[in-house]
């Protein structure tokens, strides 16, 4: 068994940086985060890193280990042999060392219209009823711990830096969790199509591959959102129907358009 491991960590800030290598004693069951915290306590007290729970529940310690985006708390050192390299997530601006500025994710999330039950449901005084199978469908999306590894690996954001055009897999998960919530009534399809830019995703499934919660991001969230959008905008019958009901009616009924999300700046 390896008794020491060489851990190379990217040290620096927005102005630039370099890899610095530390030799770390290994103990059984050690994860990469343990190694980083050992370095912090014993060799580099100012080594900047985010972490909280060390149990893969908070999604704070995202980084790129030997080039692969992972949670450090969930990556055993023994998977890497005698040396490994840790770099910050590349898609977001570096603040310092392994800490990046992920505030953009919070900004786009805020632009997603919140959960909106029907007025009848909202005002009723009796407890709601839902079926387990309906809950199960959104429960998968609600497992998301916001580690932003999917955002980091999405090539639209990572290689093309199109944060202006696509809100990324995490946001799609969030929108899907609302759209498929059994009690939500808002129609976020216009948002998905326009601002959130679901059309930018060309289904390479990189996001699904890195998800530590094993959420089927592409298959269960993004593709269904794309289909819903296609049904609405590219189905010829609906296109015709939409032409016929240009003017929204106040009476409601089956043909009335669903309410649109409120405009947000």
């Amino acid at each position, binding site marked *: 068994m390896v008794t020491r491991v060489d851990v190379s960590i990217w040290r620096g800030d927005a102005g630039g940086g370099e890899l610095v290598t530390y030799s770390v004693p290994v103990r059984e069951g050690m994860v990469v985060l343990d190694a980083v915290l050992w370095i912090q*306590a014993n060799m580099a007290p100012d080594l900047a890193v985010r972490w909280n729970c060390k149990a893969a529940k908070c999604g704070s310690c995202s980084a790129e280990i030997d080039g692969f985006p992972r949670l450090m708390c969930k990556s055993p050192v023994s998977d890497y042999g005698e040396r490994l390299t840790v770099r910050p997530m590349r898609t977001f601006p570096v603040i310092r060392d392994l800490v990046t500025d992920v505030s953009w994710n919070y900004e786009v999330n805020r632009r997603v219209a919140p*959960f909106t039950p029907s007025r009848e449901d909202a005002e009723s005084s009796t407890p709601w*009823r839902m079926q387990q199978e309906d809950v199960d469908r959104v429960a998968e999306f609600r497992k998301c711990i916001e580690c932003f590894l999917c955002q980091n690996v999405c090539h639209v954001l990572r290689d093309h830096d199109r944060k202006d055009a696509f809100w990324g897999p995490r946001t799609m998960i969030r929108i899907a969790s609302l759209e498929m919530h059994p009690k939500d009534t808002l129609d976020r399809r216009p948002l998905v199509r326009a601002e959130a830019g679901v059309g930018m995703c060309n289904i390479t499934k990189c996001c699904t591959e890195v998800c530590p919660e094993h959420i089927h991001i592409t298959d269960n969230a993004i593709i269904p959102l794309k289909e819903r959008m296609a049904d609405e905008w590219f189905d010829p019958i609906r296109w015709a129907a939409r032409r016929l009901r240009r003017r929204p009616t106040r009476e409601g009924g089956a043909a009335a358009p669903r309410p649109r999300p409120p405009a947000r700046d």
Partner: protein
Amino acid sequence: MDAAPHETVDTDVLVIGAGGAGMRGAIAAAGAGARVLVVCKSLLGKAHTVMAEGGMAAALANVAHLDSWEAHFADTMKGGKLLSSWRMALIHAREAPDRVLELERWGAVFDRTATGHIHQRPFGAHTYPRLAHIGDRTGLELIRSLQDRLVHTERVDVHMEVTVAGLLTREDRVVGAVAYRRADGALVVYRARAVLLATGGAGRIYRITSNSWECTGDGTALAYEIGAQLQDCEMVQFHPTGMVWPPGVRGILVTEGVRGEGGVLRNKDGERFMERYDHDRMELSSRDVVARAINAEVLAGRGTPHGGAYLDITHRSADYIRRKLPSMHEQFLKLARVDITKEPMEVAPTIHYFMGGVRVNADTGASTVPGLFAAGEVASGLHGANRLGGNSLSDLLVFGKRAGEAAAAFAADHGPADVDAAQVGDVVERLVGPLTRPHGESPYQLQGELQDACTRHAPIIRDEATLREGLEKVLELRDRAERCGTGGPVGRAFNPGWHTAQDLRSMLVNAEALFRCALERRESRGAHARSDHPKLDARLAQVNLVVQRSEGGMAVTQVENEPVPYDLTEVISQSFQRYTPEEMS
């Protein structure tokens, strides 16, 4: 000293901490018309609440139709060994169902019964199945639902990755706080009409803990330093089931939901030993009892190879386990290479929860300092000498809401007050001290020694001599911490060495209070077990230990609590929940 360059931000209610209590409090305060600012040490949504697994206790009576607020109240009082504030236990039991249903209306989803109602899971020392849950990640569901609600609430702003270093007072009233941004080290002075502490517990003062790094007891220390009273700081809960092996994961929580779903505890001989400790409730006895039982089995030489007990759920189908306990399945598979659908888990007690904290008014969460409120784990009273599983998440919602509303009302009644520049200067001087001592002692070293001291000297079973040694060690560390540095580099931008030096201050206050109270309570009650005073002292059920800053340092006094009204004593004595043999001794 004059105030150093800083930004100034004005608000009505300053909420410190963005876990369940902080966010619920912020939503309530904003709903009552106040401008609210939430500051938190981490990113939003990462608070320790996300680690809560099992569920949220509320007498919805969806699964057991006999359940009622009376039964929940009685369970809480008995579980707390009658030390709980009866008024808080009453409010909690009555209001928890509404808070759970309200959360659902804000978008939270829970597992369902066959009829489509919120499903409820059995849990330790709850007479009926009572915990609303979704799989084993209920805390995450609560956090995400509140987070989404919060960011769409008007008049609320959030400052992430900001650490509060000290509270400011004027004429004995709280008027703000001094803080720094972790990213660049910039100083910020918050001027507020009311402050709500929602900073959680101090589990990091122990080496083996289920708590996240943030749980350094900041709120308790901030309140203590401006003269607020704390209480019952000796009451620290060991969760019976933390991971034991491998060493890297020691202490990580194994949800009580495993036992709620039928998991059994066995010693190395295969004996289901809980039969000897609590014949009636077995694995679902209260946490203090189960933790001591595992401890006793290990001490008697009946422990597992790594010093714990086996927790076995393999009699359930693999599919059921993966559906009801998905994150436990993943956690053991990934971190311990154990498939819990096929093999038992190895578990041992781990530090989990602080029942003690800021002494508050039961109805409003008001501390003894005007304008300062507290809710959640940082506050004390609801859980007495032992918290029941599931009562924490409902505590956050019930008392977060009440404290938020009370803070907003206080802010509406009190105009803004100027902060005292000299006070700001004092806090800043202390705060930047470590940056001026590049050769000072490493805060990581001191933090490690403190964790060792608490782990060794305030364990599950305590005694006078060990506690005295622990207290002396803490006082020595306190002196050394006054002079500590950052461990090396003295930059302000995201410098964890500097951050650790700040955390250390809070941790030391919590540790000192723990040892002083533990020495003062000469009996065994709930989480506080003394080998030199092994029995309950009936008189001390009526006594809270109150901690306050005095001229001679930290003072602990015995204060009589308000007796339980007669009709409620009837509710308690008529409930089905029995005491364990050791509690009746």
